[in-house]
């Protein structure tokens, strides 16, 4: 069995369904897109249900979700963005829960980690980028936003260089967001697959060696999976937090 093949099968996107190509770009339903839609639908139905439901289960779920919502509001958006962050709150809530659900979906059997696809994380980071720019323009006006890209108090001749540096810094932030989420999500899967492959590597040498390696490998994979739950939460939090920090920097330049 080829390890690269296994990893590719588990981690890469697979097209399912018909393609429609527009200008050389192929738009088609794929595994990761399907996972995102499922996660989005779950979020939409789940949160709508628990925010309106009168049943005991809905109330319990609402309490749990409210705790997270209040954490995002009071400990991320409010301190970083201030009261100007109120209109952006629902964006951060959606971002956090969407990333969290996409991360966790990879741990469910038959699920796939959409956030382990660099196109998905790049798209999310692009939304952050757009929010930084649009939020900054909305809050300060176009000229104010452009002026505050460069920190104040610098000699005039350094401004053109700093402008370029700061603009590329803006892109670098979003690029870092893309890579951080993608790499964190894919790393755990690769480690888990690697340890599971050990069983077959030893098994190819001798059946007994494979059997001996199995408990060890499975134990390590269970541990890695537990760690992944933590990483899923952590990365969703970090992506949301950093987006808030970047947007906050654009909203309040001082």
């Amino acid at each position, binding site marked *: 069995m080829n390890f690269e093949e296994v*990893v590719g099968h588990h981690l890469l*996107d697979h097209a399912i369904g018909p393609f429609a190509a527009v200008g050389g770009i192929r738009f088609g339903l794929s595994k990761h*897109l399907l996972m995102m839609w499922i996660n989005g639908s779950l979020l*939409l139905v789940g949160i*709508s249900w628990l925010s309106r439901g009168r049943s005991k289960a809905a109330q319990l779920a609402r309490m749990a979700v409210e705790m997270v*919502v209040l954490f995002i509001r009071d400990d991320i958006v409010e301190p970083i963005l201030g009261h100007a962050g109120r209109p952006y709150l629902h964006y951060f809530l959606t971002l956090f829960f969407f990333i969290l659900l996409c991360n966790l979906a990879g741990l469910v059997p038959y699920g796939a980690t959409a956030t382990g696809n660099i196109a998905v994380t790049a798209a999310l980071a692009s939304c952050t980028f757009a929010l930084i720019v649009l939020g900054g323009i909305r809050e300060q006006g176009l000229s104010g936003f452009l002026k505050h890209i460069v920190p104040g108090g610098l000699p005039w001749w350094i401004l053109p260089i700093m402008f370029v540096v700061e603009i590329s810094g803006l892109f670098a932030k979003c690029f870092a967001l893309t890579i951080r989420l993608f790499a964190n999500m894919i790393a755990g899967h690769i480690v888990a697959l690697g340890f599971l492959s050990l069983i077959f590597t030893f098994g190819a040498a001798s059946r007994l060696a494979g059997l001996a390696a199995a408990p060890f490998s499975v134990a390590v994979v269970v541990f890695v999976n537990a760690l992944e739950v933590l990483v899923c939460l952590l990365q969703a939090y970090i992506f949301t937090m950093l987006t808030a920090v970047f947007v906050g920097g654009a909203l309040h330049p001082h």
Partner: protein
Amino acid sequence: METLLSPDPGLYIWTIVSFLVLVGLLKAFAWGPLLRAVEERESAMRSEREKAEAARREAEGIQRSLAEQLKGVDAQAQEILSKAAREGEALRERLKKDAEEESKRLLERSREQLVEEKARLVVELRGEVAALSVQAAERLLKKSLDPGVKKEALSEFLGQLDARGGGKGPGGGA
């Protein structure tokens, strides 16, 4: 592994569209109601707290004004008491003075009465004494003396009596 690191533009665009649609849908159907409920609860709690605080402030105000009133009442009572004492004292003074005056007046009047009485008694006594003396003299002189001597002696006696009665008072006649 190159496919792992090269983003698929189709999926990239799909993701952006899907995510933005999800943001809009969740805002309308999920976060909106949830946040509204949370904020309503929070504002209800805040208003409850404010109400409780206002009630406490009011109670404290009432307590303060009551204490002040009590202090005022105390002072008022003190004033009334001292005023009553003052008035009582004044009344006592006045009554005492009245009584003294009255007694003085009574004394005066009784003294005057006594004087009057004395004068009357003197006159009366004088008449009585005169009559008695006349009788005594009559008896004494009936036998021997002639009327001329009798008359002379009598008038002399009366003159002496007059002089004594005018100078000495009531005791002289008895």
